């Protein structure tokens, strides 16, 4: 049985309680935040079990590596506190069920993992990926299942993730380039937090892009545009990789606008909020986020997660800001056509 590694003493001695003090969706001062995290650590009923909207932010705010969000998820599941309507949770669990319909390319030591994001099949093309493709995997059998922490369901992760890891192991790969934050977070953060052994090196695709862009630097035509970056929730599970966004933008001649909702203060795309909590929260977060992009003169909104793209790309476009995935942006800098367009 996999159990979460969590040290109550780390929270007890924490001088900042940033996990909850910095939360953008719960208004907690230091004293109350301390009280709530300690109640959570002891398994008692507490505010975050009811009010946390699953932005994953506290996983980044906690600099002690103590996984406050995973603990909220564990406790919610233990106490039967639902985050999402039952039907939505069932639907997502059904979607990720292995069906034996996965796709595996010509596998090398390094493989690109598309997880179960069909958008990536169209997008991951061109010279950026010449050196690895067609070494790729796609399908539920390689889907990290991390998304279920939104649904307060770690059981399904504990059940499926070991099989996913084993599927990679069977391929004999040495390195897995994760084309989505959650995939990377699964192998670099969540699996270790639960004591699961990962027999390959996970590489965030940002790191891969930086390496390739440097190799192709002679062919890059700087784009000379101003952009806002839409940071996804899952990026909070791999905050140490976030700096690569700026590195990539510099390499392709894109200026990231200084705006309110960036870095640690980023706002969720709110796609998941709509499903879980209804119109008001989702609409409020999306409006503030897009207003912020417009007010700071962003010409385009750079996406990392296809799900974020699906959630707000149309709304972003209607405000005159071009939505574009970071891979497409890099491809444009190489003179290639983007693979994803606003629906």
């Amino acid at each position: 049985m996999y159990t979460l590694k969590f040290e109550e003493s780390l929270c007890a001695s924490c001088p900042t309680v940033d996990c909850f003090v910095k939360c953008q969706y719960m208004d907690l001062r230091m004293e109350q935040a301390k009280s709530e995290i300690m109640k959570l650590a002891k398994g008692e009923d507490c505010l975050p079990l009811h009010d946390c909207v699953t932005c994953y932010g506290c996983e980044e705010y906690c600099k002690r590596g103590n996984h406050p969000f995973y603990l909220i998820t564990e406790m919610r599941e233990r106490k039967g506190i639902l985050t999402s309507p039952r039907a939505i949770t069932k639907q997502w669990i059904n979607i990720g069920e292995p069906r034996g319909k996965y796709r595996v390319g010509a596998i090398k030591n390094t493989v690109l993992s598309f997880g179960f994001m069909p958008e990536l099949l169209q997008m991951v093309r061109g010279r950026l990926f010449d050196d690895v493709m067609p070494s790729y995997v796609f399908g539920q059998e390689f889907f990290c299942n991390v998304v279920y922490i939104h649904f307060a369901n770690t059981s399904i992760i504990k059940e499926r993730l070991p099989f996913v890891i084993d599927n990679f192991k069977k391929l004999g790969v040495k390195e897995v380039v994760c084309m989505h934050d959650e995939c990377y977070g699964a192998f670099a953060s969540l699996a270790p937090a639960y004591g699961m052994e990962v027999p390959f090196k996970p590489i965030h695709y940002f790191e891969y892009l930086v390496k390739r862009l440097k190799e192709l630097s002679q062919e890059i035509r700087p784009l000379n545009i101003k952009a806002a970056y839409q940071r996804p929730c899952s990026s909070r599970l791999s905050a140490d990789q976030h700096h690569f966004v700026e590195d990539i933008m510099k390499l392709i001649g894109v200026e990231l606008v200084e705006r309110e909702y960036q870095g640690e203060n980023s706002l969720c795309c709110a796609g998941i909020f709509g499903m879980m909590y209804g119109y008001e929260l989702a609409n409020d977060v999306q409006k503030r986020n897009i207003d912020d992009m417009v007010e700071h003169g962003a010409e385009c909104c750079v996406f990392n997660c296809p799900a974020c793209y699906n959630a707000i790309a149309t709304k972003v476009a209607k405000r005159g800001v071009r939505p574009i995935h970071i891979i497409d942006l890099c491809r444009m800098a190489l003179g290639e056509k983007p693979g994803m367009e606003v629906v």
Partner: protein
Amino acid sequence: MSDISRSLSAIVGENYVSDKPEETYFYSRDPGLMPPHKPDYVVVPQKVEEIQQIVKLANEEGIPVVPMGAGMALTGLVIPLKGGIVIDMKRMNKVVEVNEKARYVIVEGGTSQGLLKSYLDKNYPRLRHSIPDSPGTATVAANVMIHGQGRLTQQYGFNSDMVSGLEVVLPSGEICKIGSCCLSPDWFSKGAPLPDLSGLFLGWFGATGIITKVALRLYPRKKMRDVEIFITDSEDLVPPMIYELTHTEMVEDINVFAQPMPLIFRDNHHIALFMTGDTDEELEFKRKMIWDSLDPFIKNKDGGFMAIPPVMKPTLLDMPQRSVSRFADVKKGGGFEYSGPIIAVDKYPQCSRKVMELASKYDLAYSAMARIIGRGHCMMFAFAYTFNRADPDMMTRARKALEEGSDFALQAGGVFWKATVDEQQMALEKMHPTTRNLLKMIKTNLDPNGIMNPGNWEVQ
């Protein structure tokens, strides 16, 4: 060539009459499960006068006459059960008139839904009609004849409620105009303020006359259209959810479905909500009203709006929806039929449980589908099964499941929609005796020789 063939050729021309087996074969069946029966003749007229002459000839010779649109009803309504002449209406396919300001269109009796849609798209982009989810070849006249439903049914009722006038060839061969057009050049009403005679023909499946022109109300067509899907794992909650949604009066169309495949649909009931607007603001206002109406269910975790994958949206917004055709081939072999009673919305839980029970009992792929009619006044609930036409055993099982579904629906207070002849007899048997006698009186008086689509609505 027989005497009848010669007579028919004299009316419509030799090229438009056939008694050849390779052609009568196609007119002997529809895509559903009803057993085929060949007509003796097929005739394809182009003018009302030709239909009048054909009907008069049939009366003289005592030959059955079956008017046919595209033959898409699935319940065998245009299978010539007693042979005779099938009148294929497809050449009578003109849009006769559009009155833009009064928002109605007059079309000939064989005009297809697809043709009308294209015509309006091209010439009257601010007008639309209630498109059913049948293939585009289905005809407007046949659809109102069977009390079909379409994209505007939640707002305006059955498609037959949108009829604003009829021209009918009676079994005697005479032409009869029904509605305001009987004394006015304008076809704005099928009845009111006169006695509404449209009921002598609508719903009769051609057993009382042949519709040669139909006027249909048109409605504002907004520039934008969108869809949301609310899902719940409890069939018992679907009726109260529909109640809240219809209360908003913000929804264009409401369809409910539950099916086991693909996996994204397993275990849940899906309420597909369509909305329209001329501006982003209008559309967003409606969206907010709709979301807010279901907010208590979201807060209780009883349901939520699913994220619709971008690839799914165009399919959902398609008119007609082609997903039905795809479902028809789930088992390969292209067989698909549904029993679709009209029934109160509060019967959704029982009906959906029954679909699944029968699918399990007869080992069939199923889909439960419902289209809300009016502001929750009733719904068409489809007990839908798919089968392989090359597998007789599977077809038998599908037939049994449909029969049991029909029986269940009738017992649950439903009324058969586009009933098969067997279902018609079940309905007539259960019907109030005075009503049954009234039907008999109408049929006998209008069609004393019993030549019009015999077998249908025949009181024994």
